[in-house]
């Protein structure tokens, strides 16, 4: 890379005194600009009556003014560095605000209804005018369906990734890689339709939790393959070579050296894929039948699931339904958080120390 020649106005005749420290902007300037930006934001809010717009202009004002000031006081390179820093920080704020808003709103709407009774009861025999019932049956359904989907998709996906990274050459591997990408784009409802036609219409099984698991497994598969593939690729070849050079057979090298090295990233990938499917509604709508009562057997009879429950309650006419929907949404988010937490702990506990 080339270091840009600075355009400071020093006369070229006299060689510059060692420029180890360049003129840098006094620290109070960004703060002053920030205060001014808040003023701009408030002004915009007063004129346009919109907080979002106010925030937008305040941010814009800060970014532009600080960059310009830096350009004048410092130089162009540092100005663009400051500009980039401001933009990266605001990108984070822009991303976090709506996401926090969703969590906060869900907690606010769902907290009151969430109770041991809500968690330990099904919707069996709850009339439209009853403020009762709960999501116990849906929790069971979700855990069993997602668990089964994971049991199908994780080994299959991991083996596929191993094939692609460790063995795969030539046309078959290229074809698989391509179709993993295509599979990523399979809309959940299409996966549901496929299982519906294959499992229920063609093979003649009844709607059940397992049918839902099949669709979820299809949705999980590409995410598992892709993330596992990425992680396996990142394992340095030196490790493989060292192991092979010691005479360890390839399959043991893969299982004992490559997988453990990549395990942290793989678990993250699996968690993300579970995160993708645990909230899926569309395929389950076609496949698991939507029960109101407890059914612990995923292989026969209808089941429910938490997202399905949210969807169902949101479309119910009962005036108690929206509360139940929000409480179920909150429960779902909490379950996902716990799963994530456990996965993180395992990953941190087991993962070999990485470079950073």
């Amino acid at each position: 890379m080339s270091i840009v020649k600075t355009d400071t106005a020093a006369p070229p005749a006299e060689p510059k005194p060692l420029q180890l420290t360049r003129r840098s902007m006094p620290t109070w300037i960004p703060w002053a600009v920030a205060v001014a930006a808040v003023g701009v934001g408030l002004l915009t809010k007063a004129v346009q009556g919109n907080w979002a717009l106010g925030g937008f202009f305040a941010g814009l004002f800060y970014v532009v003014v600080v960059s310009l000031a830096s350009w004048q006081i410092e130089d162009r390179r540092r100005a663009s560095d400051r500009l980039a820093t401001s933009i990266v920080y605001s990108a984070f704020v822009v991303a976090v605000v709506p996401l926090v808003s969703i969590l906060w709103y869900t907690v606010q709407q769902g907290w009151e209804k969430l109770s041991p009774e809500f968690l330990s009861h099904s919707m069996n025999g709850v009339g439209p005018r009853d403020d009762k019932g709960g999501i116990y049956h849906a929790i069971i359904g979700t855990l069993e369906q997602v668990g089964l989907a994971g049991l199908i998709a994780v080994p299959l996906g991991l083996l596929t990734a191993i094939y692609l990274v460790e063995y795969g050459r030539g046309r078959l591997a290229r074809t698989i890689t391509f179709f993993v990408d295509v599979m990523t784009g399979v809309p959940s409802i299409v996966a549901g339709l496929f299982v519906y036609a294959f499992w229920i219409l063609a093979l003649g099984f009844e709607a059940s939790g397992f049918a839902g698991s099949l669709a979820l497994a299809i949705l999980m598969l590409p995410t598992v393959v892709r993330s596992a593939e990425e992680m396996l690729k990142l394992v340095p070849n030196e490790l493989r070579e060292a192991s092979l050079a010691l005479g360890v057979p390839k399959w043991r090298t893969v299982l004992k050296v490559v997988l453990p090295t990549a395990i942290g990233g793989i678990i993250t990938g699996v968690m993300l894929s579970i995160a993708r499917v645990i909230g899926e509604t569309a395929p389950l709508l076609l496949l698991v039948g939507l029960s109101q009562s407890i059914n612990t057997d995923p292989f026969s009879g209808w089941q429910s699931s938490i997202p399905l429950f949210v969807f169902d309650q949101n479309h119910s006419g009962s005036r108690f339904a929206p509360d139940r929907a929000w409480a179920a949404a909150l429960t779902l988010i909490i379950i996902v958080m716990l799963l994530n937490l456990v996965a993180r702990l395992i990953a941190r506990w087991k993962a070999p120390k990485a470079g950073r």
Partner: protein
Amino acid sequence: MTTRPRLARRSAAFAAIAVAGALTLTACGSDDNSDKPASGETTNAANPPGGSSSAAAPAKLDCPTGTLQGAGSSAQKNAMDEWVKAFQQKCSGAKVEYNGNGSGAGRQAFFDSQVAFAGSDASIADADVAKGTAACKGTPAINLPMVTGPIAVAYNVSGVKDLVLDAKTIAGIFAGQIKTWDAAEIKALNPKATLPSTPIQAVHRSDKSGTTENFTKYLKAAGGDAWAAAPSQDWPSQEGQSAKGSDGVANVVKTTAGAIGYMEGSFAENAGLGVAQINTGAAAPVKLTPEAAGKAVSAAKITGTGNDLKLQLDYATKAEGAYPIVLVTYEIACEKGTPADKLPLVKSFLTYTSSEEGQSILAKNGYAPLPAEIATKVRTAVAALS
């Protein structure tokens, strides 16, 4: 490398945690949502627990055990929920699951023999009769009218109460011809009201729906040349806003000033929306009540044969006190040919829903009970299921 974790072990641990969690939960969950402790009341109670059935004669049931699955119309979901609740209180060995995922889905599931009965906003189409027969092992599937519900035309206009509309005006509004609330056509029907000049936001369903079909049938039959499009499950015009489901329409109407939309009566009631009275050409505008809807249904003709009780409604009725925008939903079941293990349950459950006690529950939920004459025929048909 000192630690050599194996992925298989880890994912097995994961699965184990999930399964163990599920099993632990199994131990403490409950299907029991009744008001009283479950221990006292047992099966075959002749007197229904709770006060839900008040004056109506209690239904006599033989209470088989097992699980019955039905699917279909979301319009009758609320009625089903009440019925399932009451039925299960009377027959604690029986479990009924009703999936209100839509009439089409319900009929399809019935044709595929996935469910023992389907709830449907429309009777089986002529083209589908053969499929019904196939699903019923060669005997015809029959339509049993079970729930009738008025469709409300609900609005959100500040300061306006007791709005009166007629079919022509409603058609004009939903076709985008009448654009503001102070339009001459609306003023003519509401001489006393102070109507604002707010633009009208007509809200319709974005999904296929029996409600849309019945509503457009009404507009076509009673609106004359103000409504050109043919009745259909899909909203035929591009005017106005749309929302998914009756709850979605109710929600948009509630949150949008100047909005008007159509939905099942119970949704308008739940959302606390103003509901238009309909000027049918009778002496006084008709308010939406279960009785008024029942009157319109009793004027319907039975077009089915034998125990098939397909109804044809007269949407252009001018009968005094009859609310013309009505939805009749059916239960579709096999006349004969229901699998032997499901038959007692189907029969028992439908006996309950068509009984006086079952029908009397409806009115509290914004539905209308079946008119006596039709109800009697339904009971006969249910008794003949075999």
